[in-house]
């Protein structure tokens, strides 16, 4: 969070880019969702200060902003760890051992679902299907997919993330976003 975090600070920083986004739509209301994303990417999470700033920038009632921020699960209303571990636990991943992996993550990190590790590095989340069912079990670390996971691979990954003094994987500029590792794309099926 920047030092200038206040309604006026947000308006100063985001009014121009949000106005730009709003040009894609015939109504200001349509720009609330992208505006929320922009504020979240900039400040890490969303709160009433951000809702008020967005409502002023777009000249819409604050309730319109709040009702979207509370309805859609990808908007975060509290600060989370540097790495958001989002393990898919829906049926295709569950059938491939996601539950055992989740238990392993809980034990290793010493935290429960939705909690953040004491060092502030990891938040553990169980999510619904993320569209990686052929390479299950799958987990997103911030925006990056990790697939065909086993306890060993998860341990390796957490070791790497713990050791690396890296920038957060979510960047404002999509071009700086970490690409999925090679081999993590959905696969074309084999010939029978």
């Amino acid at each position, binding site marked *: 969070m920047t030092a200038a975090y206040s309604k006026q600070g947000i308006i100063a920083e985001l009014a121009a880019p949000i106005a730009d986004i709003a040009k894609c739509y015939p*109504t200001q209301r349509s720009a609330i*969702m992208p505006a929320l994303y922009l504020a979240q990417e900039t400040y890490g999470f969303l709160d009433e200060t951000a809702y008020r700033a967005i409502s002023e920038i777009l000249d819409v009632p604050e309730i319109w902003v709040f009702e979207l921020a509370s309805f859609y699960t990808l908007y975060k209303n509290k600060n989370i760890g540097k790495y958001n571990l989002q393990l898919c636990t829906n049926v295709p991943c569950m*059938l491939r051992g996601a*539950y055992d992996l989740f238990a392993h993550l809980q034990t290793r990190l010493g935290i429960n679902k939705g909690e953040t590790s004491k060092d502030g590095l990891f938040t553990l989340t*169980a999510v619904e299907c993320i569209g990686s*069912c052929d390479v299950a079990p799958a987990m997103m670390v911030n925006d990056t997919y990790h697939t065909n996971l086993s306890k060993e691979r998860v341990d390796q990954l957490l070791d790497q993330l713990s050791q690396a003094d890296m920038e957060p994987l979510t960047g404002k500029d*999509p071009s700086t976003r970490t690409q999925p590792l090679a081999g993590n*794309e959905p696969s074309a099926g084999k010939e029978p």
Partner: protein
Amino acid sequence: MSELVLLKHITHPDSTDIEYYEKNGGYQGLKQVLSDYSPDQVIETIKTSSLRGRGGAGFPTGLKWSFVPKGDGKIHYLCCNADEGEPGTFKDRLLMERDPHRVIEGMIIAAYAIQSQVAYIYIRGEYGLSIEQISQAIKAAYARGYLGKNISGSSFCLDIYIHKGAGAYICGEETALLESIEGKRGQPKLKPPFPAVSGLYGCPTVVNNVETLACVAHIFARGVDWFTAIGPEDAPGPRLFGLSGRLQNPGIYELPMGLSLRELVFGYGGGPLTGQFKAVIPGGLSAPMVPLAGLDVKMNFADLAAADSMMGSAAVIALDETTSIPTVGRRIAEFFSHESCGKCAPCREGLHWASKILNRIESGQGRPGDLEQLQVICGGVFNNSFCALGVGASWALRATLKHFSHEYDALITQQTIPVRDRTRP
């Protein structure tokens, strides 16, 4: 099917580049459409192709386009539904990540057919790479004059914008998707009026799935005859089947419709991971499971409907003998309860109750009468839900009770807890 079409280019390293796409015939279909076809002729061509939607409902695409009023003076909108969220489904992600120009070309042709000058592609928020690839493809298409004003020298103009979803399964339902673009919570609206008459911002709107629009581009590149020669007469063309769960070779397979579920999971899927299959879910998590004895059912709309299931998104999830059906049932109820938008009470409350009862049964606290209670709840949700979410959820849940009541009974009477339950998140 000998030749792959939808998947033909996806493994090529340059498949997302516009130069590569053009070199392999890309945007030729569009150019021909804009120079030789009237919008009505485009609609007629798609009608003749018998293309049916690849999102889940299987509605005839040409017919859907034809419902858009002509010469009404209103703005028309095209929306591409890329909010792929049905558990087990991952085909649209592959198309957007590896063949994004196909989707864009399909969108431009569809927009021309319904005379839309503004189109949105609604991509789920988790699909970061899809958003990036589609975004780059849109930029490249503008640079080559395939988007913007006077496309390829014609009088047709079109702008395409990406709207990024934010984690709501229900936004895959078309009216909820439109609400979401309007900046509202994703809650379905009553139909009629259908979107083709009153959709986005109250204007005539068509919502098509990613794979459907990719098929549109291929039809104009290769011709209707090529398309109708593949698969059954009432549901022709290639289709992407996503195989996952307890089988040997999970992945995306491009095949005609009409193969049996058995051929899919044994022939292509390579058979069960352990022992024998118990059941297979043929079309995403909201499609009722088909037990082993029913696997000879043909994978097309009519035969699956006759088998009390559905084609859905062609996401095939296999369950083998290590799978506890009550655990799958509980997970189905939990998922749909979590994703219920809260608009109507039967779905919001009923799925929550079902999920609580199933959790209790699974943890060894089942009571006599629980299964009857579940049947009553499922019936209530099935018959009274506002949209297809509650219907699909209760339908899928009922199938687990219908085919595997003995597994539930065993849990209730013996009160043994499945191994997997102990490590539940």
